[in-house]
């Protein structure tokens, strides 16, 4: 009898787990697999702005201040912003397997790699978007170089044109995201 109940329970779990996984398939990237790197890193930064904090931020940012108003509009529908960044004093402190923890998730359904820039000086910058139909449901930025590993994950609908506004705010590092209409000539002026 016991065996029958156990078997039934296992069967229920097996049926439910794929359903739960599918439901959990959102734009939140799990980064805890990288926590062990903190022991090797010279600097570790973790920013966690979950939905509660996003709502709180939307409440306290002023409508009178232009910058705050824009950030407020940008984060209004977001469900979270998460940043994890490691800086190392020497090369080779993280392995391809560490990056694979993140990339595996970004190969999941809905994710599309939008940008992949490799530069000797700046390392590799990858920008991924999670599409839900025609809307963008999330964004992930992966920046790696010899001595740095940074992941930024924005959960919820992202306005790409205004995304640069979030750089340097809310603990988000400068990612070098340029507004769409800004050209190289603008910088030279």
């Amino acid at each position, binding site marked *: 009898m016991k065996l029958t109940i156990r078997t039934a329970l296992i069967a229920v779990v097996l049926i439910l787990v794929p359903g739960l996984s599918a439901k959990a398939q959102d734009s939140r990237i799990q980064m805890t697999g990288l*926590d*062990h790197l*903190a*022991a*090797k*890193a*010279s*600097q*570790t*930064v*973790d*920013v*966690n*702005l*979950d939905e*509660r*904090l996003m709502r*709180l*931020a939307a*409440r*306290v*940012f*002023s409508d009178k201040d232009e910058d*705050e108003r824009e*950030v407020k509009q940008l984060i209004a529908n977001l469900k979270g912003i998460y940043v994890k960044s490691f800086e190392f*004093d020497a090369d080779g402190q993280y392995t391809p397997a560490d990056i694979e923890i993140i990339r595996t998730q970004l190969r999941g359904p809905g994710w599309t790699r939008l940008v992949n820039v490799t530069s000797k000086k700046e390392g590799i910058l990858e920008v991924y978007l999670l599409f839900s139909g025609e809307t963008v449901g999330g964004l992930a930025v992966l920046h790696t170089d010899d001595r740095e590993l940074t992941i930024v994950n924005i959960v919820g609908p992202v306005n790409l044109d205004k995304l640069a506004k979030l750089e340097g*705010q*809310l*603990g988000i590092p400068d990612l070098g995201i340029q507004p769409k209409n800004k050209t190289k000539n603008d910088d030279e002026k």
Partner: protein
Amino acid sequence: MKAIATWIVVIAMIFTTANGAPAKGDDFNSVVRMIEQFYRVKHLGIPFLAKAGMKVATTAARIKGGQARQLAEAGSIKLAVFEDQSFNGDFIKFRSSLNEALNATWMPLIQTISAPNEEQVYIFLKDAGEKFNVLVITIEQRDATVVQVTLSPKNLALLLKDPEGTGKSITQEATINDQE
């Protein structure tokens, strides 16, 4: 006999209110105790702090006129200081214990660990009606501070815009030297 029973109930109620209820949810003291237990250190008592010229409790919120921006709401500062003691320990283990202890009531905003100088900074937030409670924990090689303040929405916006910078200012404000 009935009177004795009544007295027992009254005494029990007094003890429950005096000892049990206030301790519940006092995360500031829990964090201080956690640091003491984890690193086997002791925080300084208020008389010692006063002797050292440190501002504590309500006086900590007073900032010299116009020189620095006042972040904490007056009288809202709780401060614990650990001075000249060794903070050797597994910081990853400490971080995970801290997050586990505060996760139910506080929201982790930013956590930084700097390995070369073994500096850890943790900033947690909590909604407190119209205002907000902020808990800033700074642990260095030989010193540590735990600061809890109440912030206005305006100052919380500053903290959210620049968590690291404003977090440092909150700690500096709480530990500013009276004799400066």
